[in-house]
């Protein structure tokens, strides 16, 4: 299972980067989102997966006894997902605005505005 998931994660990373290298701005967002799935899965997988045992202490016990899923990456991913959502929304709105103001969604054309005085 780990091997399959690892390959899948690698593919997600590859696909995300591939989309991000496109010129179109919408593909950029999709690429970023895919990259964030890949990253979340990556973090989830490094801690080694355990099937079906959540990190919740049984009513009868006071401590968590193995086997149990590692709670640390889960806590990390949980906030990452929510923040990722906030950032995605921000990026989408930003891109909408850029598109509206400049009339183009081509990344290659957008970089000419940077000047240094």
């Amino acid at each position, binding site marked *: 299972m780990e091997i399959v998931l690892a390959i899948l994660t690698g593919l997600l990373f590859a696909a995300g980067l591939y989309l991000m290298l496109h010129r179109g701005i919408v593909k950029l967002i999709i690429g970023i989102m895919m990259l964030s799935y890949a990253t979340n899965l990556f973090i989830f997988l490094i801690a080694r997966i355990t099937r079906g045992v*959540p990190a*919740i202490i049984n009513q009868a016990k006071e401590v968590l006894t193995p086997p149990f899923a590692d709670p640390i990456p889960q806590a990390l991913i*949980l*906030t990452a997902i*929510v923040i990722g*959502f*906030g950032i995605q*929304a921000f990026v989408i*709105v930003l891109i909408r605005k850029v598109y509206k103001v400049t009339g183009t969604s081509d990344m290659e054309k957008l970089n000419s505005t940077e000047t240094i005085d």
Partner: protein
Amino acid sequence: MRTVILQTSIRLLMPLFIIFSLFLLFRGHNAAGGGFIGGLLASIGLFTRSMILGVNNTIAKYKIQPIGIIASGLLVSAISVISPIFLGKPLMTGIWFDFTIPLIGKIGTPLFFDIGVYILVIGVVSNITFTLSKN
């Protein structure tokens, strides 16, 4: 989207959404759930309602000012972070009261922290969705 059936059903479902999200919030400390999840669920409910009955209608009905909600969520969390200092304990020490409330369970600063997260998530998500659907 504004069929009568949908309109009526969302009016009926809305309290369920809120109650279920609160349930998820309060059980979060001991079982799957918590402020993030509860907040997301509640805001999905609000968003569905605003899609069917209109954003302005929803805002008027629940008196929602997203920025205000975000601020109060942050405030609740921040207070629960700071309050242990007044008892002479380090920042963020979890303080629990002895009594329990039926359905909610034990009361303590981590719970208030989670409540703050819950409120903030509702504010953030409804701010995003409302401003986007208004435009």
